[in-house]
């Protein structure tokens, strides 16, 4: 697993402080919530709804940081702070990139969860 997908030190610390069983529950919740938030982000982009766009990106950034998903969190942070202007300029590419990175994060977390 690429360390920039999931920072093992962050994930291990989370598991040690919150407990292994609980972290499984937390990962499962993230795997349900994150796709919903990414859809929300896309929909807010389509509707040009700046508030929902910022809030969804903020939420994804926050969760990414919790699990040590550094690249994913950084991408979400750029969207949160940059708004949809740069996304429009890039023809929506940053949203596709975020979704692709989420795929890698989800795979890595699923692997860790079952370890």
């Amino acid at each position: 697993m690429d360390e920039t997908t999931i920072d093992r030190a962050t994930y291990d610390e989370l598991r040690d402080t919150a407990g292994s069983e609980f972290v499984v529950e937390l990962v499962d919740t993230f795997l349900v919530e994150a796709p919903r938030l990414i859809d929300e982000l896309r929909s807010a982009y389509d509707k040009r709804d700046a508030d929902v766009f910022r809030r969804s990106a903020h939420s994804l950034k926050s969760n990414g940081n919790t699990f040590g998903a550094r690249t994913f969190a950084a991408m979400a942070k750029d969207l949160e702070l940059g708004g949809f202007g740069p996304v429009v300029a890039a023809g929506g590419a940053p949203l596709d990139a975020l979704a692709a990175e989420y795929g890698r994060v989800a795979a890595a977390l699923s692997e860790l969860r079952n370890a």
Partner: protein
Amino acid sequence: MREVRHGTARLLVVDDNKVNRLLLTRSLELQGHSVASAENGRVALEMLRRENFDCLLLDMEMPEMDGFQVLEVLVADLHLRDLPVIVTSSLEGIETVVRCLELGAEDYLPKPVNPVLLKARLGASLEKKRLRDQQKEWMRRFATREVAQDLQESGFALGGKRIRATVMFSDIRGFTGLSETQTPEETIELLNTYYTLMFDAISGHGGIVTLMAADGLMAVFGAPLPQPDPCHSAVRTALEMLDTIDLFNLERDAAKKPQIKIGIGIASGDMVAGYAGTNERAAYTCIGDTVNLAARLESHTKVAGRPILIDNATNAAIVDRLGTESLGQVPIRGKAKPVDVYSVNRDQKA
């Protein structure tokens, strides 16, 4: 108000993000606290108004009602503004932290929340709340809820302001003679029971007791917080006090103890209300002609042989609702001219 026992507190976590909500709840539960959660500010405020919490852990970026709006509502709410709030947020920029603190947040923790830092900050906030609650409890015990509220809202300053209110004086008839026939312990017990009964009647009608001296007490209706109908409340209180004393006398009769009788004087009008004393020791009180008149009317109940006497202003405000009888003009000590005095009938139609 709840007492935080053995470091276990009742906490409310507010966050629209389910992962954050679960994680923070888990961290706090592992520290031994009891935790409830809400998904936005609106739901949180509903819960805070329904249930007592020791501390609020508040996210900022939320739909429906965000954290800033919650802080604004809390600071304006007398019952909730002392609730400690720890903001947990991953909002960027120092200005967010400053704004939260300016809006009354106790502390700010960046997300992901470090459990060790969380424990330390939460412990400090809960300890501050415990001290604040203790101060409020002491103030309530020695000052009455209304005065405590006035102090909390306006702060303490010696001096008064002119207000319109109704004042009541009440006294046990023949108390000195009564004290001589019983032990000091019995007298204290009698006074404590008497005060408890009278306080219930007075506070039940929105009045506050501003003075207790042996068997006498002074109460004010309409200050420090305004009341819609202070004259009516005061007279209703007086009638309830007499009814209560009747019941109390039945008990004393059964215990072969002498009966007690009370006299009550009520007057309404302008007075100066505020804190009198020194900066170290002061009491909320009312002074002025109206107050003197109420005291004189109470004293006159002995002469008139009527338990409740009221002045013209009080009578004018209640006469359409409560039965009174004019005793004509009565010379009152300290007054140049005789004043109109009315006796309140004991038997009132419902």
